[in-house]
């Protein structure tokens, strides 16, 4: 039955340029609601929502939804007249919609007809009546901060107390606020308040050139620079159906897997440390440093911020540096295998990891879990295998999954993915195609749309791009999977002791900047 409904949508759909299969449908308000129900019944998840101000073009605001189905992405659009920019809330169908809708209201002043009424990204840094993403708002205008108290949900009862944490945290990490309600040490409720690193990315894109936007995309979330810049380039290149040279394709994928490796190695060390095994941090942080130094040799950068550019990659590494990288990866693989055995057989460590911060599979599915966190709950989705784009259509990774849903499962998935990435990198470094690493892209006509979708180390990263006049960007929306997985974290800590929060939090290692925009 649900398939019939999606078939009906398909009848009206058109293809959007992308590195994966994307179908777009325009609907009215009733269709907006119905599409959400059909998607949910078909097992699709809401990936993201974004709004656009098209009043200059046709007198409408638009709300766009992207749904991730098994083998394609759906983009549903709903246009609203300027006078009543209200659309049906999706928060009752897809929980992540609530925060996304709050963010869209703060930035664009279009409203869902239900859900949480509190602001999300606006913390008093600009007036309630100002909607920065509207086209008639000057991006340079600044206002003094007028902060007011944020009404957290209060938990009452005998012995219930609160612990406020943040936005500045104890370690060298990003800012955000966590409000714990506890009895004794046990967590009854965690409420997050995010948005502290909101720096106006979407508005900033609109003052950039299409051929420069990848630099900003790489800096939406610095630990996922390759994933975001590649997604941006896919969106741009697909508009002109450009096919980048084979050597550039492999170098991009190599960079994406190296980014996954660097993050997983860092996290595996930090997770050992947060569970009291400082030895793990010392060992894994040394492995990560060895990898980053090879990055610097091969690519001229420790973190690959400016490697993926429109048309290919920015530089062609020397054969000698790639050989050295290859040898280093072999050494790292040996060490990771040895350390995995040490972690697995360490009773004290496993005692801290097993059963801690658990999320059930049904819960994860209903919260729309994505990427690594979802795979650790037994939801074996990975874009590299589910909707492979080049070169993953020829080099399909085995999808790592573990059904347990606890910190131990997230450690286990990281080990499996680390070894899988090492295997992929080994294949590519052993048989690198020759030739150019960059091509000239043709000029892009105004008003075109393109979607880029990449499986970053956390999960699916999406860029929706629309070209403007004279080679400019009209609108660019970026989505980090942390939006969904922050909801998982709120559930994962319930009934745990508050002292385990750092360990549970690290096991997700979600992005603040990628979420806040």
């Amino acid at each position: 039955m649900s398939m019939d409904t999606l078939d009906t949508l398909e009848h009206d759909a058109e293809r959007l340029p992308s590195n994966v299969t994307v179908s777009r449908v325009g609907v009215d308000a009733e269709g907006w609601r119905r599409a959400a129900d059909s998607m949910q019944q078909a097992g699709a998840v809401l990936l993201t929502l974004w709004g656009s101000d098209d009043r200059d073009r046709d007198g409408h605001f638009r709300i766009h939804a992207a749904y991730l189905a098994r083998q394609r992405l759906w983009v549903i659009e709903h246009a609203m007249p300027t006078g009543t920019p209200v659309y049906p809330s999706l928060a009752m169908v897809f929980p992540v919609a609530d925060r996304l809708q709050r963010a869209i209201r703060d930035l664009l002043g279009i409203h869902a007809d239900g859900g949480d009424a509190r602001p999300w990204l606006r913390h008093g840094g600009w007036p309630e009546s100002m909607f920065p993403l509207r086209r008639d708002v000057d991006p340079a205008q600044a206002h003094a901060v007028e902060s007011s108290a944020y009404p957290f949900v209060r938990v009452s009862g005998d012995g219930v107390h609160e612990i406020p944490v943040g936005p500045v945290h104890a370690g060298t990490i990003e800012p955000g606020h966590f409000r714990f309600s506890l009895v004794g040490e046990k967590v009854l409720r965690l409420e997050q308040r995010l948005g502290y690193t909101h720096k106006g990315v979407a508005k900033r894109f609109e003052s950039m050139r299409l051929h420069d936007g990848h630099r900003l995309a790489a800096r939406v979330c610095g630990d996922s620079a390759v994933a975001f810049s590649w997604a941006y380039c896919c969106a741009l290149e697909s508009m002109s159906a450009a096919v980048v040279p084979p050597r550039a394709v492999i170098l991009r994928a190599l960079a994406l897997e190296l980014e996954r490796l660097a993050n997983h190695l860092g996290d595996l060390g930090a997770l050992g440390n947060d569970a009291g095994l400082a030895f793990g941090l010392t060992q894994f942080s040394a492995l990560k440093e060895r990898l980053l130094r090879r990055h610097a040799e091969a690519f001229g950068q420790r973190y690959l911020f400016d490697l993926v550019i429109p048309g290919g990659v920015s530089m062609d590494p020397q054969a000698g540096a790639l050989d050295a990288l290859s040898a280093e990866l072999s050494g790292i693989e040996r060490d990771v295998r040895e350390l995995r055995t040490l972690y697995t057989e360490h009773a004290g460590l496993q005692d801290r990891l097993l059963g801690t911060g658990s999320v059930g599979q049904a819960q994860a599915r209903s919260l729309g879990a994505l990427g690594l966190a979802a795979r650790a709950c037994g939801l074996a989705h990975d874009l590299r295998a589910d909707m492979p784009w080049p070169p993953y259509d020829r080099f399909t990774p085995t999808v790592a999954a573990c059904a347990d849903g606890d910190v131990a499962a997230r450690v286990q998935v990281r080990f499996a993915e680390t070894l899988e990435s090492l295997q992929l990198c080994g294949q590519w470094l052993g048989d690198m195609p020759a030739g150019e690493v960059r091509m000239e892209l043709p000029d892009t006509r105004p008003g075109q749309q393109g979607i880029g979708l990449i499986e970053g180390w956390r999960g699916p990263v999406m860029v929706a791009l629309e070209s403007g006049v004279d080679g400019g960007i009209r609108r660019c929306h970026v989505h980090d999977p942390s939006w969904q997985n922050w909801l998982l974290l709120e559930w994962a800590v319930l009934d745990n002791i508050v002292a385990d929060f750092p360990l549970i939090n690290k096991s997700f290692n979600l992005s603040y900047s990628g979420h806040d925009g």
Partner: protein
Amino acid sequence: MFDILSRIRRTGQLSETGPHALKQVTPDALHAKLHRTFGRALCIRHVDAGSCNGCELEIQALGNPYYNLEGAGIHFVASPRHADLLLATGPVSVNMEEALRRTYDAMPAPKWVIAVGDCGACGGIFGSSYASRGSVSNIIPVDAVVNGCPPSPTALLQAIAKVTAGARHSEHA
């Protein structure tokens, strides 16, 4: 346990005595210098005032066995009240402006501030806007900047060594 000890023995000592950033400054010499200035180890507080998380990754790397910051008597602290040096990354978002200012105010004098990364130094690619105040120095006094996107751990070490060597003593506070 035997396996862990065996692994530690085989790993050996990775710390680079006098990383080439600090050619003439060995960890011992740096430690002695810090001790003369503070009478104890140097304590750093880091605040992410709106960064993309790139700078944070390189600041974290200072703790790995190769750079071994703690070996030079420098460590990161959880409270600004224990800190001598603030490493602030930016651009400063309007939503973090107050938290950055309050962290700085909570630090006892004498204190130093290093603005880290291109964004902390000048706003970087984000610049100033409705959501961003740009550089750290637009909000609090800054003693030194470390450019780079992100700056390497070596560049961070150089800046820390230079500032704490008394090259410019902070007079704010």
